[in-house]
């Protein structure tokens, strides 16, 4: 039983005490004139043995209990639903505005607060994802590596509530998110979930690099675009062909870039918190692929069983003591 352990093995120095009850009984001896006169009695011998064992057992159980007997924590491999996912969060200053493009006033919720609230719900749901977090504004921010620690991921998502930083420089952020995945393929799908309210032109250098990485690493990409009222959408082509370029419509061109990657890709346009919620629910539904993951079975305390055993053994000794013939 290698997975059993003690917290304080010093108590085992008391083990020699268990020999004592095997030798002596705590009962009053009844005088009798000649032992040979007594008939050999199997039942009496059995009771005698049981009382000796009860005494030894009670001491052993109390020693094991006091030394903190427990079964160690171990991991079992289970199949659940989830993925290896990197949340790539936009921390640009515009995320602090409401969906209407203003500083939130009254009951209005900023885009970052809505994203924070709904992503928190997504993360703390019943999924078994391994989640990493990256953020970007003008530069990419490494936040958390891929981890199963949901509390840590929530802490990183909660940090979104704080004021944003600067511009939206999405290609550096994407490169950072992709760097979370190693080159060797793993079981379960690899997802990048990009949540942003804008985009920027992808420069040719990073375009080549991103194109290669997305393909090589086998990434599935989701983009939730938080569309501010009055801004251009990612799906619509401009009326004026002169505006149809990456500088004027970076969002549309980022979408075209993603579509041309030849990888599984879905884009959502969310114009309010409800649409954002639907988009997140959709990702949740889409990514219900089986994933093998290691579940931690927490340590199990066995002290209670020791004490129960000791109490039962002692009860038997007390009962025997009660049956002592009083003279």
């Amino acid at each position, binding site marked *: 039983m290698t997975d059993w352990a003690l917290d304080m093995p010093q108590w085992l120095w*008391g083990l020699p*005490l268990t020999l*004592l*009850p095997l030798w*002596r*009984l*705590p*009962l*009053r001896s009844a*005088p009798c004139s000649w032992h040979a006169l007594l008939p050999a009695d199997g039942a009496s011998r059995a009771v005698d043995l049981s009382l000796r064992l009860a*005494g030894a057992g*009670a*001491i052993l159980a*109390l*020693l094991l*209990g*006091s030394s*903190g007997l427990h079964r160690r924590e171990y991991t079992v491999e289970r199949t659940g639903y989830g993925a290896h996912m990197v949340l790539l969060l936009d*921390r640009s200053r515009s995320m602090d505005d409401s969906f209407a493009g203003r500083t939130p006033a009254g009951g209005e919720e900023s885009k970052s607060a809505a994203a924070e609230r709904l992503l928190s719900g997504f993360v703390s749901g019943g999924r078994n994802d391994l989640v990493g*977090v990256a*953020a970007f*504004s*003008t*530069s*990419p*921010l*490494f*936040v*958390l*590596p891929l*981890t199963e*620690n949901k*509390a*840590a991921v929530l*802490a*990183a998502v*909660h*940090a979104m509530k*704080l*004021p944003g*930083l*600067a*511009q939206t420089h999405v290609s550096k952020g994407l490169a950072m998110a992709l760097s979370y995945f190693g080159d060797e393929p793993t079981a379960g799908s690899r997802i990048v979930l990009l949540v942003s309210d804008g985009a920027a032109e992808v420069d040719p250098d990073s375009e080549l690099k991103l194109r290669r990485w997305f393909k090589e690493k086998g990434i599935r990409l989701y983009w939730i675009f938080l569309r501010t009222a009055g801004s251009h959408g990612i799906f619509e082509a401009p009326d004026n062909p002169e505006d149809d370029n990456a500088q004027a419509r970076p969002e549309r061109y980022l979408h075209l870039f993603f579509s041309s990657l030849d990888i599984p890709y879905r884009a959502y346009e969310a114009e309010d918190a409800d649409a954002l919620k639907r988009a997140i629910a959709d990702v949740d539904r889409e990514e219900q692929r089986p994933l093998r993951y290691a579940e931690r079975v927490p340590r199990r305390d066995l*002290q*209670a069983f*020791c*004490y*129960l055993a*000791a*109490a039962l053994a*002692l*009860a038997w*000794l*007390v009962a025997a*003591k*009660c049956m*002592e013939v*009083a*003279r």
Partner: protein
Amino acid sequence: MNRWRQRVADPVFAALIAAFVLAVAACFPLKLALERPVFSHIVIVDITRSMNVEDYRQGGRAVSRLEFVRQSLIRAAADLPCGSTLGLGVFTEREPALLFEPIETCAGFSAISAAIEQLDWRMAWAADSLIAAGLRNTLELLGRGDADVVFVTDGHEAPPLNPRYLPDFAELSGKVRGLIVGVGDSGLSPIPKYDESGRRLGIYAEDEVPQRSGFGLSELPPEQIEGYHARNAPFGSERAGGTEHLSQLKEAYLRQLAGTSGLGYHRLESPEGLARAITAPALARRQQVAVDVRWIPAALALAVLAGVYLRTLLPRLRFSTAN
């Protein structure tokens, strides 16, 4: 009745009953609420260029301030008792960026140390380093009382601060608990220059960094400024020279900032020193933890039972003739 009184008077019987009762008691989940010190920190690390200065030595090799900060922070995080929490953020320009809210340091240690490992000057979204303004914003934003602020910086303001416009800490003083950690050596060292991909390009030269503040009005009256012109040269026409392209730990300045904002000050000299500084009793928070005390009745039962059996070893002095 008489028989029972007689039985209870028998010390062996009484002892067995007592051991039994104690063992039964130990079967119940007995917990005692004890207080123990835990810590809650939000560490904000300066990642501006001057933090690349290599003025720490480790194993005979020069390491940058940021590298030394990373190693020291990981060591200090490992030293926090379980139940403590640590949040991490970076600072450039005048704004802190919180990467994550405080995370429990035992369960979250691998995530925390990986995040510290990745702290890099290339995370910076702006190149300015307005320490006092950044400290003020950090305290305003993060000094919420549920965590202490640990602000790690070398104190090198870039561009230099105009003494006319110093951030006001008056309303924050005493409201926030925490520590300024001063990083660097007191001697001047050159600041390495890197390109965007992290290749080293040499060091910053004297004319590559602003040597004096060009913001607002000069602190000197116009008559004392050489070549003063209200519109074209409010700071004078003389070429500003200086040592702003070199960097040192501005300890006196950081001590003064710590004093006005009501924070403590610690100079980073070793990882162990930082670990001690952030686990100082002054920063401890009391946390109630339930301690398992079932071993107490169990040990008592054991003692009583051992007594019963050890007694059987005593020579019988007298033949029991109780009637």
